[in-house]
């Protein structure tokens, strides 16, 4: 469960986020759409307790991220542009290290998540030898290693080929079935439209529009977005 109320982030007179209000129930995938520089990455980083919000409040499963970031961290799995992986270590060593940070001991869970993303055969290969797509899938495995309640994904499908994107999409749908709350930013709405349950539009740091996804609803939605972001 993710709830934010008028979250802002600014320094001096520059406002990266001017007021983001969201409410994302469990078992849903929320797409966050907006041009580059609208504040998508800043929003993910704030919810992931990597960046401090300047104003407003944000709660993950009821825990306020500003007041108690330590309590939020075990609840969230994060996938950023960087893969958070060490190239000189093997896939298994990376996951075991990450497991030790989250109190997940041994190889069992790491092997399980490797199987989930189809990388079990490459468990003992150095991550440095992995392709971009394989690293992305490994960072998904890393994100769910400690069984978080919420997944925060910053343009997770960016740079993936069709096959890679299809695998990640299937993976996310399965996580949704298991009760995960998923927030995912994207700037290629056309391709990811079917994946989301609802879409929030971010424009100049503000949430300006929200719409539940329906298969044929894309064209009308795009028109509304165009209208809403013109007079901004």
């Amino acid at each position, binding site marked *: 469960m993710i709830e934010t109320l008028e979250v802002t982030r600014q320094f001096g007179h*520059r406002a990266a986020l001017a007021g983001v209000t969201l409410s994302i129930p469990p078992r849903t995938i929320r797409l966050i759409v907006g041009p580059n520089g609208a504040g998508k990455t800043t929003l993910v980083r704030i919810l992931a307790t990597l960046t401090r919000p300047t104003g407003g409040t944000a709660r993950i499963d009821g825990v306020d991220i500003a007041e108690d970031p330590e309590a939020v961290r075990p609840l969230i799995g994060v996938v950023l542009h960087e893969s958070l992986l060490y190239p000189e270590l093997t896939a298994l060593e990376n996951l075991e290290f990450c497991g030790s940070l989250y109190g997940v001991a041994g190889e069992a869970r790491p092997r399980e998540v490797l199987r989930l993303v189809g990388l079990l055969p490459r468990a003992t290969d150095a991550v440095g030898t992995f392709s971009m797509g394989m690293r992305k899938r490994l960072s998904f495995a890393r994100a769910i290693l400690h069984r978080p309640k919420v997944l925060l994904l910053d343009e997770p499908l960016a740079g993936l080929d069709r096959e890679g994107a299809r695998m990640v999409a299937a993976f996310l749908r399965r996580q949704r079935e298991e009760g995960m709350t998923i927030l995912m930013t994207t700037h290629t709405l056309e391709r990811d439209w079917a994946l989301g349950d609802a879409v929030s539009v971010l424009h100049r740091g503000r949430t300006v529009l929200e719409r539940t996804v329906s298969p044929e609803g894309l064209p009308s939605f795009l028109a509304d977005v165009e209208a809403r972001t013109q007079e901004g």
Partner: protein
Amino acid sequence: MKEGDRWGPMLSVAWLGAGLVHVALAFLWAPDPRSTSWADPIAFRIFFFHVPLAWSGYLAFGIVFAASIVFLRTRNARWDHLAVASAGVGVVLISLALVTGALWQEAETGEYWRWDDARLFTTFVLWLVYLAYVALRSTGEGGEGEARMAAIYGIVAFASVPISFFSVRLLPALHPPPGSREYMTPVFVAVLLVGVVVFTLLYLLLLRHRLALLKQALTLEEAKQSLEGA
């Protein structure tokens, strides 16, 4: 100075007046001929400038330290601006304190610099630390990243001064500074206090100038951005 600025001119006039009084007193004060704790009675008067300068330098860096802590807590850019301005003024004051200190040391002992004079030594450490702070500020990145970096360094740096003082003071090569205290007559202390007031006023005056300059730079930055953005 902006027109709505009542304080500026008053502060400058007050400083000029007090400054002249201080210089006059420093010259008129006659040392007690009997006491022997300094070699050259005339040059000793540099003390009336060295100590107030060093004091206002320490004050400046104390404010950088405090402003940095408040900035880290509140993230309000104003405190960061205060820290930058105070550091800039502080480096100037401390540099003058070092120069006058060296001149005074030379008049006393014939050497421009002696490591075992604890006061000169800690003033030098403070000067070095805040040159590094100013160097850090001029990496030119600007924005919150640089401000946060500088705030944290401002705290660590200020804390390192007493550490350096105690660490080196106990070195065998060092002995406590020469000179007994019997020259601290009431008149002497009075002149010194006037000096401290004068140079604290000076610090505030320079700080206002430096803050005004910073504000100007920010308006320029804002104007440029609105030019690009529009």
